[in-house]
């Protein structure tokens, strides 16, 4: 478990040649270690894996764990020559994301062992930090929305609830919630993006 090279189909448009070229460098360097290439691959792919983790785990700490595990495993398998097609590294990462997510959900994670073995070689310090918004600014902008927009946005995003859920909580239809959410989000993004006035 966890050692098999896994590919998942990714549309051709999603293939990213720069990442593929870096993966080829890592694989070609074996048994030597190309730390520069590994660091570059990590810097490029780790934020994307973290997004996957945030979407599917809904927890920043769990998403960071998934990010580290996936990237350690991908680099480990590139070093070991177990990635059959390094040019398709993005699809390999996707497959690894799904596998690690399943393992995490089953409580089968090899986290400690993997991070003990590889953690020193991988630096998480240099990947991009998720953007954060000032809460007072967000509150000020929410205060400028129409009441329905504010209610729908709060209920939608506080716990990441679907339009169906929000509709049942507010006595609206799901279609109505989507329309209000679209309008409210546009105004909220515009206000937050403009900065304090």
């Amino acid at each position, binding site marked *: 478990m966890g050692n098999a090279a896994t590919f998942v*189909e*990714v*549309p051709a*448009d*999603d*293939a*990213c040649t720069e*990442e593929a070229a870096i993966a080829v460098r890592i694989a070609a360097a074996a048994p030597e270690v190309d730390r520069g290439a590994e660091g570059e691959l990590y810097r490029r*792919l780790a*934020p*994307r*894996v973290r*997004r*996957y983790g*945030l*979407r599917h785990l809904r927890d920043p700490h769990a998403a960071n764990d998934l990010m580290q595990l996936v990237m350690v495993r991908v680099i480990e398998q590139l070093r070991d020559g177990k990635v059959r097609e390094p040019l398709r590294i*993005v*699809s390999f990462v*996707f497959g690894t*994301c799904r596998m690690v997510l399943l393992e995490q959900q089953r409580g089968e994670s090899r986290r400690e062992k993997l991070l003990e073995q590889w953690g020193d070689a991988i630096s998480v310090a240099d990947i991009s930090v*998720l*953007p*954060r*918004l*000032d*809460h*007072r*600014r*967000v*509150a000020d902008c*929410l*205060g400028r929305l*129409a*009441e*329905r927009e*504010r*209610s*729908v*946005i*709060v*209920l*939608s*995003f*506080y*716990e*990441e*609830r*679907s339009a*169906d859920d929000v509709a*049942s*909580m*507010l*006595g*609206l239809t799901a279609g109505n919630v989507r329309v209000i*959410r*679209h309008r409210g*989000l546009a105004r*909220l*993004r515009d206000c*937050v993006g403009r900065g304090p006035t």
Partner: protein
Amino acid sequence: VSTPPCRDPISFDVLVEYWLGELNDEHTQRIDAHLLGCDACGAKLDEIVALTDGVRGAFDAGLFGTIIGAGFARRLAELGLRLREYRVQRNGSVACSVGPDDDVVISRLSAPLSGIGRLDLLRLGQPGEPALRAEDIPFDAAGGEVVFVAPAARLRALPTCTERMQLIAVDASGERLVGDYTFNHSSTR
């Protein structure tokens, strides 16, 4: 480092649907795969994540008030938040306050709401404060109440005072007072 443009960008609305779990499994996986290869669309998802965090943080800090409905009030209790709730009968009053440990202050205004198309909520201001009117608020007519979260940060700053709120039905023929509610607030400062 600039982000290369996406050749097949995913719209912001679809990314919102993806983030909120509204898409089917196949569509979700297509977007998962796209985002693992595309930083431009990933940056849009980062914005959605930041908005989510911002809304949650501002709500938890009691920085704004909003209508929430009875279902969300129950959900907040299930999440373990410390709720202080006040139920006010139509044309009634309540003695109220907010403590340092309260996470959320919820008010429930009882009213006969069936048959009403548009409902406005009016907060009559303190001396020197303008009245605030929230137009066309969401409400559950069958439940017979309007449930809202008051901004705890503002309540904590209030002196001992009285505030009034009114529910007003609006239709083509004009406006009608549905209920008048008085909050006798005790400061805990």
